[in-house]
């Protein structure tokens, strides 16, 4: 605006050099402002990593790499014995089960919405999915505790336990006793929480498939399944995987809802109906009352989650790059 009004006042014969330098000044300023914004992100990220490492250093020195595969978590022992295996196991198992449920359901909803759904239903279902994404996580935790928990403990789990009783492996995985608070309960809640991410992104990318491709496929006699399987999914693979990774990132880091319903136990039980804990739930429950090595151990857990999430995202990137290369050839 300022530049424009300067030009107006200059009138004729207007000074070309002056106007250009004014433009240039604006450009340079804009460049620096945006650059500063970009640098600040790096500074914040670096600052977080450095403070995590500084905080975790005493625990790193004390436990070394054994921290990763020690299962005991005894902060009150003298000296404290801390091992991250329990929380790491809980984080991976709950996220894995959650993705196992959320990926097919989420993509299923997206396919229905874009390919099969009557126009009338499309908006209500779409809005419902968006609302699901907007529910605060603590609400999911309460619902999981008061509604889902009793259902699982009194109806679903006894059924599964009696069904697989005596079967090797499965008998352990679905072993009793039934419990309100379990890895499975937490995984179910996580699945519901990440569902909207997968669906919303899948819907968006499915819409980018050129109609002419789909019409051609239908034209040569493909069924809807074949169109989705051979046209829509291959065309949008990158975007769908991106959505899944975003969802996985949320599942790995989700704290409050999980703390409510996972049972916060550092022991690893073979059963998914047993209690467990995740990295973020462990930090949330114990941080306020911790000190010394115990606190340092919790910060180290935080650093681990950071690294874990980083690797998941990096692996996703790598996978996408490979897929793109393959598609290119």
């Amino acid at each position, binding site marked *: 605006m300022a530049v424009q009004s300067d030009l107006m006042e200059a009138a004729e014969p207007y000074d070309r050099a002056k106007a250009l330098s004014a433009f240039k000044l604006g450009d340079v300023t804009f460049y620096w402002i945006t650059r500063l914004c970009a640098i600040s992100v790096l500074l914040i990220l670096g600052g977080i990593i450095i403070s995590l490492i500084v905080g975790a250093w005493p625990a790193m020195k004390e436990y070394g790499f054994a921290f990763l595969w020690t299962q005991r978590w*005894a*902060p009150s*022992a003298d000296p404290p014995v801390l091992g991250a295996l329990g929380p790491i196991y809980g984080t991976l198992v709950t996220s894995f089960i959650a993705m196992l449920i959320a990926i097919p359901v989420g993509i299923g909803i997206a396919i229905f919405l874009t390919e099969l759904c009557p126009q009338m239903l499309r908006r209500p279902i779409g809005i419902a999915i968006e609302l699901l994404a907007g529910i605060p996580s603590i609400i999911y935790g309460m619902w999981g505790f008061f509604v889902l928990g009793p259902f699982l403990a009194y109806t679903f789990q006894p059924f599964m336990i009696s069904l697989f009783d005596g079967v090797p492996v499965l008998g352990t995985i679905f072993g*009793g006793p039934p419990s*309100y608070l379990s890895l499975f309960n937490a995984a179910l809640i996580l699945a519901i929480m990440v569902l909207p991410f997968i669906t919303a992104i899948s819907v968006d990318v499915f819409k980018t498939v050129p109609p002419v491709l789909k019409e051609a496929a239908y034209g040569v006699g493909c069924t809807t399944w074949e169109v989705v399987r051979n046209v829509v999914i291959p065309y949008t693979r990158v975007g769908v995987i991106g959505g899944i990774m975003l969802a996985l990132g949320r599942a790995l880091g989700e704290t409050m809802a999980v703390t409510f319903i996972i049972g*916060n136990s*550092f022991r690893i039980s073979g059963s998914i109906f047993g209690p467990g804990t995740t990295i973020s739930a462990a930090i949330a429950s114990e941080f*306020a*009352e911790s*000190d010394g090595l115990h606190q340092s151990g919790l910060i180290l857990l935080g650093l681990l989650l950071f690294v874990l999430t980083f690797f998941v995202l990096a692996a996703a990137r790598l996978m996408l790059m490979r897929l793109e290369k393959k598609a290119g050839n």
Partner: protein
Amino acid sequence: MNFIKAIVAAGLVAASTSAFAADITGAGSTFIFPVLSKWADAYKKETTSGVNYQSIGSGAGIKQIQANTVTFGATDAPLKAEQLEKDGFAQWPMIMGAIVPVVNIDGIKPGDMVLDGDTLAKIYLGTITKWDDAAIKKLNPKLELPSAAISVVHRADGSGTTFNFTDYLAKVSADWKSKVGSGTAVEWPVGVGAKGNEGVSGNVGQAKNTIGYVEYAYAKQNKLTYTALVNKAGKTVQPATEAFQAAASNADWANAPGYYLILTDQPGDKSWPIVASTFILMHKDATDKAASQEAIKFFKFAFSKGGKMAEELDYIPMPDAVVKLIEKTWAADIKS
């Protein structure tokens, strides 16, 4: 990290106090919070100066007073005399409360079930796993106990309640002492963890065949099935104000340096075995001496007029003799 935390804490306190410059600031134990806020209300009506207390947990309260961001800290696990010396703190007990085991078994009403320390420890160690175990049957010959698995609930967050509960178990069971020990957060051999007293009461209230431990007030308000306990003298006692007071009156505060005394497993026929106290921490030589004196005035008020309010909330006020001792400590230790 401590530096960062100090800044965050300072920011919080500054933000909350800037509007009322004269407020007394404190932080720590959640156990004392209900009664402290009641006292603060009454104190504000009388003197117009308020108390700003943040119930962020005992451990965090100790850190805040060490960082000098608050005038007083409150903790359920007392600091040892050496630690007090090192930090230059004065410490005294402010209020007492009781911890009760709670269960949820069909057909069993509050006070019906009797447990002793050893059985309680075995349940929490996972060596007793069923409600119809011989040890529980022996204590409760008249009760009809289901042959169901015991589902153990404990605190997931570090807490003063856990500190006192595990301290009791360590005193009555050598096994517990060697395998688990006592502390604000311990390595639980069995069970699920719930956050806060409300989390444990919610769990036990909802799920069948559970056992947990909460402050008496939570058990009462949520109408949970508390149990009777066998005390050190071998007598069965019901959780009630008289039993809590009996345990408190037997405590020998006068001979405890820095008032370091944990009120579990106290002698006496009528004593309830798990009583806890909350301790106040203040700098002996505070940088802001005026604020220190304001805080002392508030505690004086709480001791002289707060007893009834505390009883209404199921706390146990400190006995008069102990209050006199504490007032002497203030006069001797806290510089004005």
